[in-house]
């Protein structure tokens, strides 16, 4: 637990963050508290940064199989400023619009960052989801081919962003599962 300068957030800053993100007042203040607890002592919160490991160890992300991808997508130079954390929380908040969530989900699932979700990415996603040591190659290949059958519309063995968007718009569980409520301890 770091001992930061206990700056109360200015009212104007709070208003600005409320206008620029989907977070409510209470959520922003909660994230502010968490950030203050984690940041190194003696620094103003707007200048302090957290490492990827610190953010990965938050309860919200601790058990997530995609936490390294989430941290990669939302951080800059592998460091999180306060506004980066807010941006991340805004995408995962309940009030966020579907297009924003789909956009970031695509970026998170694109492991090799080539702008497409190809077979290699899909296999890595399935591997992370199953989290088991005895996953056979057949199972991975089967599942990958099923996903591509359903959503690869132009048969190029990859999902472009519009194909992914189309698949997620039809998916009933996406909005419910792509949500993180609580960022505190």
């Amino acid at each position: 637990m770091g001992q930061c300068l206990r700056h109360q957030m200015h009212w104007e800053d709070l208003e600005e963050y409320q206008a620029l993100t989907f977070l409510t007042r209470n959520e922003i203040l909660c994230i502010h508290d968490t950030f203050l607890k984690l940041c190194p002592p003696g620094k103003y919160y707007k200048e302090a940064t957290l490492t990827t490991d610190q953010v990965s160890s938050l309860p919200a992300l601790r058990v997530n199989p995609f936490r390294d991808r989430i941290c990669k997508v939302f951080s800059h130079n592998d460091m999180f400023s306060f506004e980066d954390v807010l941006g991340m929380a805004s995408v995962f908040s309940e009030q966020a619009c579907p297009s924003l969530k789909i956009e970031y989900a695509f970026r998170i699932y694109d492991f090799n960052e080539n702008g497409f979700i190809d077979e290699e990415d899909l296999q890595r996603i399935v591997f992370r989801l199953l989290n088991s040591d005895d996953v056979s190659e057949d199972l991975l290949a089967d599942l990958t081919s099923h996903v591509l059958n359903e959503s690869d519309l132009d048969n190029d063995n990859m999902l472009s962003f519009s194909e992914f968007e189309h698949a997620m718009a039809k998916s009933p569980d996406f909005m419910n599962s792509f949500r993180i409520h609580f960022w505190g301890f």
Partner: protein
Amino acid sequence: MSESSASALPPGRRSRQTFIHPENLSVDSSGFSSPPVNFLQELPSYRSIARRRTTILSRDKQSGTLLKPTDSYSSQLEGGITENFNSQSIRKYALNISEKRRLRNIQETQMKYLSEWDQWKRYSSKSWKRFIGKAREMTTHLELWREDIRSIEGKFGTGIQSYFSFLRFLVLLNLVIFLIIFMLVLLPVLLTKYNITNSTFVLIPSEDTDVQCTIYPISSSGLIYFYSYVIDLLSGTGFLEETCLFYGHYTIDGVKFHNFTYDLPLAYLLSTIAYLALSLLWIVKRSVEGFKINLIRSEEHFQSYCNKIFAGWDFCITNRSMADLKHSSLRYELRADLEEERIRQKIAERTSEETIRIYSLRLFLNCIVLAVLAACFYAIYRATIFSQEHMKKEIDKMVFGENLLILYLPSIVITLANFITPMIFAKIIHYEDYSPGFEIRLTILRCVFMRLATICVLVFTLGSKITSCDNYSCELCGYNQKLYPCWETQVGQEMYKLMIFDLIIILAVTLFVDFPRKLLVTYCSSWKLIQCWGQQEFAIPDNVLGIVYGQTICWIGAFFSPLLPAIATLKFIIIFYVKEMSLLYTCRPSPRQFRASNSNFFFLLVLLIGLCLAIIPLTISMARIPSSKACGPFTNFNTTWEVVPKTVSTFPSSLQSLVYGVTSEAFAVPFFMIICLIMFYFIALAGAHKRVVVQLREQLSLESRDKRYLIQKLTEAQKDMKNRLDGQ
């Protein structure tokens, strides 16, 4: 040749030499090499989608720097965005906060160049949106049990959370139903009774009914044992029978206020129709989201792989054990789906001999299922008749326990039947050789039907007893007025007993089965038997059926007992806390998890079945069985429904003829035919759309093949050119 291929690159793009190394090419099923990805990223279609997404693609992602504002690409981006200010709010852009701040400043400086009117318009729309946002925030605080449900979601996943959200929905529904009944029926009566307003009751004596029909003996025996109060409380007889809990209390024909007379019978009937209509509309509204998604779906199975893999992980899980459970349930689910695929293929490959054998076996087993159902219904019928006949004996001639047993006999038999039949159904379905997913659904449907039909059987048994008399009494009043002088109150009492018994059973099972089981497992885990048995699993289908059963009782009973929805609200609140404690302290989550989307649709479907099954006995009793002449607001009418025609006949004649016209056959038949035509039109339209979608998909894959062919040709040409340049 070389110039033409060089100018093939579109002007204005940063030129990049794409040296295609042979090992980057891979061959896909169409036989064309699929181009390397960085080539595809330069295509105009990719770029325009990226521009629409307003992401700032950077080639130097490794260094992690954003493009500088001076970059021509991003300033084009900003120009595009500021033009669209009216359509999107700034939060929806996929940029980080400092970028959004910069955009907002640009927009605000732009606003200075607008006219006064436009400025005022934008300012007012922004403040209106802010007001709406704040109001929405306020209302989320009012949401009942928000923190509890959130924590359950975090610990147990969205499947179980959907059960508790469903329970919350039922609490709200019952509360609103009670408010409707209160406003329409209870409020005038209570205002008059306690002299709050200066109103009086209007009692119209009935003209042409036999005096015998109006006798209503209030049972008051001389010597009252102390336990009779307990029996009265548990069964609604005695001192509870005359209170406003039951129909019989409302023997009032109207309430006379200063300047108008409030027609209580009409209000009573309208409150019933209103709460049924409201329930139907609210359930349909809630299930519309699930329906919309199902309708867009073109796949056969209910759950697609895309959904399970991309939306498979609940991001709100916070603890390690729940995460492990989620992993194992995903493993189970995905393997089960692949297994189901295989079984489906196997079924498709069955020989005709096997098919005949399977179908005849299924027919036989379905007959057994029907026989089991018939046996249960018959048992309930006999128990109800036995209970009704013996209830008429003197209370003080019986022992306390025996008395309660007789009173609660139908409830006990229903509960036993609902406990045994799921086990029988689960055994039977193994032999029917369906695919696993279909097995589960069919078992659940059979249990649902069993549970809800038992209530109907009970009500119909009562109805048959009420309208059947030995030789002469039925022609007198239309119902058996010797045994049932006020039959609506008696039906209300049965519903009340069912509800109280249901609550007692749920509390008893939780206290005396779940908690000891958990204690045994924790402290005596060395015994093999206890280990096998294990902790309780939170079985969602059974719990949901339990609460839908309670809600169906409430819907049927609210007509006969106006305070029943209030009791149902309290009951569901108690059940919420009991189930929450049971979940947190005694249950382990089951390895086979329900998905939230699947669950919501299933819950509302079951609730809708319950509502439809509840409407049937209500309509029959309102329209067919003569209302009792000794009590209740409908003493001056033949049946309950007769209030409506009598009220319509008091309307002005033009309105009357309109109403008669709308309800006549001359209107109904053409209306029905037009509705059918409209439905056929929409079905044809949907079919045409599906065909177009299939054609477009084919076209899309053909276009993609063309694109890859052209790219391959282009790269070959570039290679040739490079070789030739090198060779020179």
